[in-house]
């Protein structure tokens, strides 16, 4: 019950007028930042960090955590309304969010996203409150082989979801992996695939440049061809009644949200993995368990709820290794960790004792920020719906400008803006030829991590792949590898079966 005492202590700190104001300010900014494609929580937190220099560390971390949280809600907004994921965590939200928006159900999707985020976040905060120290011990057991096994699991859950043509999915995935190798060799540090020294390639191909290019710019190109004639496709209604009916419909998503939240928390907690694989895995698992899997990708509410609850759960999860181990679980927490050092705090088990006010103040504020965020996000829905009603002739140029800003901001390099427009053309061609875009994006996001953890494992084992199946030495890795193998094989069985049937058919 000591924890409950600490929690009330923390809530007390978080409810002080200054901290409450910081949380509200952070959440509103976060939602706006998240909704802006390209700004995302990493850049948002980094840009707004100087603002926190004027306040004590506890208020500062409350502010930053609120931005992080708000951005997770906001990320869904641009994914759903514009088909442009504002961050890698929101890519999976486009799969069903955008089709819903095109069917005039943007409001349903947005409300579902907000509520699922709220449940995922709250679930995760409760786990965080009660089990932070033992969970940190668990996270420490994840070294390179275990991390590789998690990444492989992410691919495995996603296999077979690409669409009708497995070959096209494979090609898209390989292209994504290929792009993830551009830049700096992760192990040796030497530049590679920089085409004779184009400096813009040194930092690699940023995920956002690809995602904004193929989704955002590609979508505009696609719309240009349609000639703005389908103005009515953005018709969307919103009133109190719509919100209530959506909330009622949400009951069908209960199981999905529960699974996604649990998965999100654990994957987010693992250093290196973070919220992006969590959201993809949650989406795929939701589809596998769904009664109506054929609805997925065409506008299923579960398809919005699953990634959204998982990415919020993961964002709280990723704060756990930051505070207890001093290692970031996501790019955003890496920046927050830097802030911790700037404030002169040392993360680790002692932080919980020596800076109890900081840790519990933050914990308390997470409950409050999460509640604020769901309210802010739902109140923001009409604004975005109103935006969608704008004619495409006005909306398209605005989106293009926002895309350009988004492509520029992560690296502040004009080269990336040009690259983004090239990806826009690629996205258009892919759509024309019916290639799936998501596997390419996923592969680019996870490619670096896959390669790094694999090569690290191989160095550790002196070249023996047995390290991944060593039940004595790396039991977690071995179990995860087995699950991945099963998941990879499962979709093949009906395929083989179908193949046989068709052969039998032709020979008869």
């Amino acid at each position: 019950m000591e924890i409950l005492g600490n929690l009330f202590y923390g809530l007390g700190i978080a409810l002080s007028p200054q901290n409450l104001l910081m949380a509200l300010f952070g959440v509103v900014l976060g939602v706006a930042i998240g909704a802006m494609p390209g700004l995302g929580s990493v850049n948002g937190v980094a840009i707004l960090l100087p603002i926190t220099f004027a306040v004590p560390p506890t208020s500062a971390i409350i502010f930053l955590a609120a931005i992080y949280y708000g951005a997770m809600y906001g990320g869904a907004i641009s994914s759903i309304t514009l088909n442009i994921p504002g961050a890698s965590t929101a890519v999976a939200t486009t799969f069903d969010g955008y089709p819903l928006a095109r069917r005039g159900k943007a409001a349903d999707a947005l409300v579902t996203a907000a509520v699922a985020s709220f449940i995922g976040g709250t679930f995760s905060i409760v786990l965080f409150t009660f089990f932070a120290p033992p969970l940190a011990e668990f996270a420490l057991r994840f070294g390179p082989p275990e991390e590789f096994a998690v990444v492989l699991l992410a691919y495995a859950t996603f296999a077979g979801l690409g669409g009708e043509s497995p070959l096209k999915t494979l090609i898209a995935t390989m292209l994504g992996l290929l792009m993830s190798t551009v830049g700096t060799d992760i192990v040796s540090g030497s530049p590679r695939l920089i085409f004779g020294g184009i400096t813009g390639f040194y930092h690699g191909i940023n995920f956002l440049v690809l995602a904004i290019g193929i989704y955002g710019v590609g979508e505009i190109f696609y719309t240009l061809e349609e000639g703005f004639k389908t103005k009515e496709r953005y018709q969307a209604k919103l009133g109190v009644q719509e919100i209530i009916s959506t909330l009622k419909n949400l009951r069908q998503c209960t199981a999905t949200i529960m699974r996604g939240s649990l998965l999100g928390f654990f994957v987010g907690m693992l250093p290196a993995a973070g919220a992006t694989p969590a959201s993809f895995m949650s989406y795929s698992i939701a589809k596998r368990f769904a009664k109506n899997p054929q609805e997925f990708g065409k506008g299923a509410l579960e398809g919005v709820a699953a990634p959204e609850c998982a990415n919020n759960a993961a964002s709280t999860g990723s704060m756990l290794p930051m505070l207890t181990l001093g290692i970031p679980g996501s790019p955003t927490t890496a920046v927050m960790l830097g802030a911790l050092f700037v404030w002169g705090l040392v993360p680790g088990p002692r932080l919980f004792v020596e800076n109890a006010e900081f840790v519990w103040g933050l914990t308390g504020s997470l409950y409050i920020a999460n509640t604020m965020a769901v309210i802010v996000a739902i109140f923001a829905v009409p604004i975005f719906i109103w935006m969608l009603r704008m004619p495409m002739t006005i909306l398209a140029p605005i989106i293009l400008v926002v895309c350009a800003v988004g492509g520029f901001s992560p690296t502040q390099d004009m080269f990336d803006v040009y690259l983004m427009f090239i990806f826009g053309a690629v996205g258009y061609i892919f759509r024309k030829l019916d290639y799936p875009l998501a596997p390419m994006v996923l592969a680019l996001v996870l490619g670096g991590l896959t390669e790094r953890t694999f090569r690290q494992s191989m160095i550790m084992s002196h070249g023996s792949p047995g390290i991944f199946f060593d039940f004595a030495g790396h039991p977690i890795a071995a179990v995860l590898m087995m699950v991945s193998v099963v998941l990879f094989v499962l979709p093949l069985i009906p395929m083989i079966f179908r193949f046989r049937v068709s052969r039998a058919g032709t020979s008869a």
Partner: protein
Amino acid sequence: MKSLKGSRRAIPFLTLALSLFIVVALGTTQALAAWKPTRPIEFIIMAGKGGGADRIARLMQKIVTQNKWSPQPLVPINKKGGSGAEAMLYLLSKKGNPHVILVTLNSFFTTPALRKLPVNYTKLTPVYRLAMDTFLLWVNTKSGIKNMDDFVKAVKAKKGKWTMGGTGKMQEDQLVTNMLMQAYGLKGMITYVPFRGGGTVAKNLAGGHVDSTVNNPSEGLPHYPGKMRPIAALTPERIPAFKEVPTFKELGQPQLVYFMQRSINAPGGIPKDALNWYTDLFNKLCNSKEWKDYTSKKALNRACLSGAPLGKFFANEDVKHKKLLMGMGLLKN
């Protein structure tokens, strides 16, 4: 007439005096209106967000902002590509631009040498050195290793399967590892596993995934003393925060001394006045209470240096790193 004659004679003198006055007056106004940044200052970091260099840069940004020492903001920008190559090439392209500065690590010396870049420290303007980060040899507390003798024995017992975690290949940690292997006759017995950042390296030691590391003190602190144990320090004197840990010098290996410099550089050919302004700024920063607090808490050596001695320091470090790389067979003369 006499007076007229006198005044006529006085004319050249007066002109001279007047022109002298004008020159002096202009000079003073120029000195009074010395260079100040007129645009936001790009604060380039040659490593990713959240790493050691990034943290230091953001701390500097905080101190400068809080004390209102600059009329324009410092804007941190991470250019991590190619182990710092991207950042250094960027500075080369900004020749003469006084609104760009770079915060460095030791890849400032190794990357240009290894990658044969068209830029190295001589093409940039050295501004200020603020600190020298220190290194310790760490093991997991569960290993039972308490001193260097235990360490050498344990490495030999593993018959070439001992692992050392560190940040990217051919960077500071691997140089230190190589120095250690040479000093203790352990060549070929330690496998170096590169990770992305110091924090991750420390976590992999704390979790028992690698056998040892050469982390900076600040990276090891989260796991100290519970999971990580320092064995010896690569410093000339004991580190105040780790008083009980001997130095390699005490253990009879005086050559095992290695520092990571944290310094500021500007592009080549910036105006003298701008250099003076930056020198003054970072001098204030290096002598601020905040910087003193941070360096003592994180067991960094505060090491303020500027001007010609800094140039000399860079030249020495450059030679030292080239020798280390040649000793590893990574660089040919």
